[in-house]
């Protein structure tokens, strides 16, 4: 067990090195220099550009730039190309903004998908099953921003409330209670919208997993010995159907960065996804690379935890 964990961690660290090298080369080999972002600015003289290039080691060979990046990342001295602010505090602040959105989204997805999917599986072929299948596929197929715009229009015209941003401008002096309510209200629509596709996908997965388990011999045995239907479904079937979902936790964490670009852009939410988008627009390589690196760390950590969890909850799995 411990040997397995140790070897697994080592393997993942090695993967991480390769990921960072690949990310670094993709960003730096692509055309478009960070020092050329603002070529029309009359104050940018050639010597300024040269100074900027030297300050950020842009004239060194690629492998040295990689070493500098890793060194600065490890010592926390990595600076953004755009405003020379340290990268890590910048990311940390945006992370704190993204976190409530991410937590709400995840809670909504996981608390709604299971009832919807289980009910559809238990009543396979019923009107409810067919309707929920169709609705799920429709929600998967809608472009996220199309649906969000429709919902924003509807919410604003029906309830006459603001939905954009993290808080209403000018609420800073209000009572703490009102400030919190304002913050909460601003969370509702963005987290619902970013959860829509997730609910649709996860509930389909729950349904197929439940169907798989309901067809097993031990469920038939449970029915044959006269257990009430609820005990069969929730005690015998559901517990086994839940197993594969442990692995899905692993793919949850990286969604914190990659999955949220569109929705943070629509709702003007100053989170990680938008930070990445702005960094890409500015050719701000340290921020892009560090975000990519953090996403890779989150993915690897997530799959590691789910591997271990899987072995913990399923006694048939042996780690070796």
């Amino acid at each position, binding site marked *: 067990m411990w040997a397995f964990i140790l070897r697994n961690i080592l393997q993942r660290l090695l993967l991480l090195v390769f990921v960072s090298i690949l990310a670094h080369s993709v960003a730096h080999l692509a055309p478009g220099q960070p020092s050329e972002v603002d070529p029309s600015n009359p104050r940018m003289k050639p010597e300024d550009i040269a100074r900027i290039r030297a300050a950020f080691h842009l004239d060194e060979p690629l492998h040295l730039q990689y070493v500098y990046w890793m060194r600065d990342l490890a010592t926390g001295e990595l600076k953004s190309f755009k405003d020379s602010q340290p990268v890590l505090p910048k990311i940390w602040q945006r992370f704190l903004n993204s976190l409530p959105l991410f937590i709400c989204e995840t809670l909504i997805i996981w608390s709604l998908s299971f009832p919807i999917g289980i009910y559809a599986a238990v009543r396979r072929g019923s009107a409810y099953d067919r309707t929920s299948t*169709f609705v799920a596929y429709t929600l998967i*197929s809608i*472009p996220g921003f199309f649906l969000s715009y429709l919902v924003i229009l509807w919410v604003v015209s029906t309830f006459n409330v603001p939905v954009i941003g993290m808080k209403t401008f000018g609420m800073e002096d209000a009572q703490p209670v009102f400030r919190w309510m304002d913050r909460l209200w601003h969370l509702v629509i963005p987290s619902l919208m970013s959860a829509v596709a997730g609910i649709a996908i996860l509930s389909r997965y729950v349904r197929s997993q439940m169907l798989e388990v309901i067809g097993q011999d031990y469920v038939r045995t449970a029915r044959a010995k006269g257990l009430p239907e609820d005990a069969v479904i929730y005690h015998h079937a559901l517990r086994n159907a839940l197993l594969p979902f442990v692995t899905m936790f692993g793919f949850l964490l990286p969604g914190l960065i990659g999955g949220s670009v569109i929705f943070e852009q629509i709702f003007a939410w100053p989170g990680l996804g938008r930070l990445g988008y702005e960094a890409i627009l500015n050719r701000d390589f340290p921020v892009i690379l560090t975000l990519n690196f953090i*996403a890779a760390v989150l993915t690897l950590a997530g799959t590691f935890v789910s591997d271990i969890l899987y072995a913990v909850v399923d006694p048939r799995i042996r780690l070796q």
Partner: protein
Amino acid sequence: MADSRHAAALAELLPDLPTPETPLQELWRIFYKDRLAVIGLVVLIFLLIAALAGKVLTEWTVTFDPATVRLPDKFKPPLSSASVDLIPPADRPLFGTYLLGTDELGRDVFARMLQGSFVSLSIGFIAVGISVLIGIVLGGLAGFYGTVKLGFMTVDTLIMRFTDVMLCFPTFFLILTVVALLPPSIYNIMIVIGLTSWEGTARFVRAEFLTLREQDFVVAAQALGLPERRIIFRHMVPNAIAPVLMSATIGVASAILTESALSFLGFGVQPPYATWGNILADGKDFIFDAPWLFFIPGVAILVVVLAFNLVGEGLREAFNPKLRRR
């Protein structure tokens, strides 16, 4: 060939015996039971016709011109007629009517949607084609030659670790990075979407190859001394293609969605090409003045992506051996 002769002889001997179904007939029978999937297939056939018509009618023989700018006729609602006194005859739309209205430059939305159907569909197909090709080659190599040693690691380890590395990137963020850094071009978008979405296919194909390699017919083919090329392409790939086909159908749907998301962020296909994604992304600015610019491409994307997803689901059911022969 021998099979059909055999079946014919059997039918002659035992006229009451129902002729056995070919695998394709069986597939179609199960697929046909899923009404939603059949509707999806009909939609897709229509879309294919529309896309081909779009290529022919907007580029080869210009019946509908998506690029003509008619400033007097901007923001005309659907089914309105062109202002005859202001537009020169050469610039008028067919029958003088804008079927789906005009946009902020007076361009005919119907013509742009027709052109866009071909572009959107080719983005989906080419991107998925690239990802399926990479997936089959890498997955097949890992599955068939997995045990071959390359220095200190096996081929399987090498390919699968590379797949793991690729899985560590947040896909949409990676696509956005590359598309934003490269010069804007429709081919870059196709290639980047293709290069970042092959991991699932590679894993499927590897798993299928690992089980197929142990099957009797493959062992028999090896014992007969068939060349490896023939074993792989004639005996193994056709048997491993089912899950690939299913995931490719859904892949086309998600490629179309990815393109529209890129368009929304301003990194989509650039003018003069019209895609449904960039018509929708441009239309969102005029949602109050000209709602048709927003709703027509939005609903079109929804219907087409839905059709791809439903057909993919129908194929999954049809290929699922547990649902057969019931």
